[in-house]
């Protein structure tokens, strides 16, 4: 039956095509090139992205973290209720596709009205005029006060004196540890007094019965960058040179890689593998950023056994920290409305709501405390405490390119194929080559 249906549909459509051809041509004289282009099927879903119904304006708000989308939706609903005539359409696209989408939008002149910006990408977008200059808006606003945000984060989004983003949140890296395993091994929990030696001893004591003491993955932000700065080393100098050949940096890398080479840490590389290892109890300690919090809280195993503390220190205390900002497209059709929304997101009220809902650590002064009380599963205060000595995630105009080059060089040190010093010097020269072309 279905068989026949398929066939008759096809035959019908084709006869139609042929008949038109025959009739228009009369005596077998079809005129080439006059047939219509393929007829697109009618869209069956209404297209809402630029929709304006009456006086209502719909703003496209693009984000990359699906875990924050629910909380942001709550905020958007409250904003809509308070601002009649503005609707917020949240679009979630995962991290790597997010930038492809934004790139396409920027090239075609259809960026979302309001969207998240990151330190890796701000230079490209700001220097090419893709973002709206917020200076005059901020000056005349009684709600957004940049002095209430950490200066380091404000600066990331400032290009040649113009502010292109209002800070949204910040993140730091914490030391996650398995309380149960610590208790069993009789090792005291990590705290702010911990040094590198304490970390190493604990890792050693905890490595047994198929469980590794620590997870030291080949990862920069949630891995060796922290140790480099704790040791007084650097990744990128102020005059845009690689810091990988700095002896302090190499020393930190040697310390870090030792965990893997001595079998205190599994050899773990990919992001998924890292998360698998910690969430499945393969390692007793690990370094993970504050943005993992909602995932870890939802994971029964993590919630039951794990807690988080500040990172250990060597020469000094340090944790890599970074922050996102809200940016507005340079050519948005609704600059006033987009600003109203961005202003709300960056206001004391909005930032406090953002914290209360546990979306992420609000960047606004004092709001972080509300975020701390939004989570009673873990000692999340550690993340906020680390801001005092946080080091902004190293960045320049081509961050991703040299980060990947550095990974390619450092891989060999983690597998033990070359020693750390050589790998680091390879990383330095690869990185300097990229920086020279910036």
């Amino acid at each position, binding site marked *: 039956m*279905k068989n026949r249906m398929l066939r008759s549909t*096809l035959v019908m459509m084709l006869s139609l095509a042929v008949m038109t051809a*025959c009739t228009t041509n009369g005596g077998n004289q079809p005129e080439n090139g006059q047939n219509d282009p393929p007829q*697109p099927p*009618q*869209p069956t879903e209404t297209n809402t992205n630029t929709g304006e119904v009456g006086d209502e304006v719909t703003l496209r708000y693009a984000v990359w973290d699906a875990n924050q989308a629910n909380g942001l939706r709550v905020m958007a609903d409250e904003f809509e209720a308070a601002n009649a005539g503005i609707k917020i359409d949240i*679009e979630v696209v995962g991290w790597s596709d997010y930038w492809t989408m934004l790139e396409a939008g920027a090239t075609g002149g259809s960026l979302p009205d309001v969207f998240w910006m990151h330190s890796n990408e701000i230079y490209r977008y700001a220097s090419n005029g893709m973002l709206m200059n917020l200076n005059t808006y901020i000056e005349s606003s009684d709600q957004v006060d940049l002095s209430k945000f950490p200066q380091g984060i404000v600066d990331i989004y400032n290009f040649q004196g113009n502010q292109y983003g209002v800070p949204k949140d910040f993140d730091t890296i914490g030391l996650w540890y398995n309380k149960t395993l610590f208790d069993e091994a009789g090792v005291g929990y990590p705290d702010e007094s911990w040094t590198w030696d304490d970390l190493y001893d604990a890792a050693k004591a905890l490595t047994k019965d198929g469980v590794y003491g620590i997870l030291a993955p080949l990862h920069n932000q949630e891995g060796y960058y922290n140790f480099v700065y704790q040791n007084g080393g650097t990744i990128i100098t102020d005059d845009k040179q690689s810091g990988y050949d700095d002896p302090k940096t190499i020393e930190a890398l040697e310390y870090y890689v030792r965990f893997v080479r001595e079998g205190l840490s599994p050899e773990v590389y990919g992001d998924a593998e890292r998360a*698998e290892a910690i969430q499945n109890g393969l390692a007793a300690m690990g370094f993970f950023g504050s943005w993992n919090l909602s995932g870890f809280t939802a994971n*029964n195993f993590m919630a039951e056994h794990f807690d988080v503390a500040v990172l250990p220190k060597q020469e000094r205390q340090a944790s890599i920290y970074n922050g996102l900002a809200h940016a507005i497209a340079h050519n948005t059709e609704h600059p006033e409305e987009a600003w109203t929304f961005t202003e709300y997101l960056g206001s004391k009220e909005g930032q406090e709501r953002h914290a209360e809902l546990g979306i992420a650590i609000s960047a606004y002064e004092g709001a972080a405390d509300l975020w701390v009380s939004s989570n009673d599963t873990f000692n999340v205060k550690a993340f906020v405490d680390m801001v005092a000595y946080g080091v902004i995630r190293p960045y320049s105009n081509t961050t991703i390119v040299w980060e990947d080059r550095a990974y390619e060089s450092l891989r060999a040190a983690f597998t033990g194929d070359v020693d750390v010093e050589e790998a680091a010097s390879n990383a330095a020269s690869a990185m300097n080559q990229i920086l020279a072309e910036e």
Partner: protein
Amino acid sequence: MGIASKAAKAAAYLFLITGAALMIIPLLWMLLTSFKTVAESTSMNPFVFFPSVWRVDNYTRVLNQNHFSAYYVNTFLMMFFRILCSLLFSAMAAYAFARLQFPGRNFLFGIVLFQMMVPTQIFIIPQYLMVDALGMRNSIFALVFPGFVSAFGTFLLRQFFLGLPRELEEASKLDGCNIGQTFLLVMLPLTRSGLVALGIFTALFAYKDMMWPLIINTSAQSATLASALAKIQSAISVNYPELMAASVLAFWPMLLVYIVFQKQFVEGIASSGGKL
């Protein structure tokens, strides 16, 4: 039946069954994992093959946090229109390439082949700009867009047309059919299995297309199964039982479609084979 042929038959079955087992194990594993708790899924000592209780929690959680009904509808409509377009236009072009002589034929067919050689990733941004210029992001139209015509389908059906005996056309010419009638009434019905095969492949390629829907249809309700799955993966990271539950939810409609079409497929082949 001799012993030798019995042994051969047994060997054939053994081969088929082993192969089938290898094919299906990953998917059975997906199904089993989707009913487990995280602890069960990662337990090594003892290794857990079957969940202790067949719980559906993973499914309810995934269903509650997503809009699967919208994904089903979007995916279905995308497949439907892509199949329609590719069958119609490809059959027309394929017949011309296989059987008609006309100036530029080889050159144009060269373009068809050439298109297949190009990785689809290079079309993403140009096609995005086109859809965007039409103001059609987040729509079914956008999902169908790259599949209005199919170089693959043209090539596939050309091979089927080439496999048909020439005598049939000569006969229909003698009966007074013009080229269009010959194509439509005589040749097209004979390539039914090819059309069904193309229908299946078009549906599959559409269903598996992940990057295009991710980028063009960004609003929550306009995702397809494949792009939604990629989003779910980035959201819940490594909770394998939930990821597998989401995969199963994306998987079963296609299995159903295939089972339905398979019958068609076989029937179509049987009837056209008889006529020759």
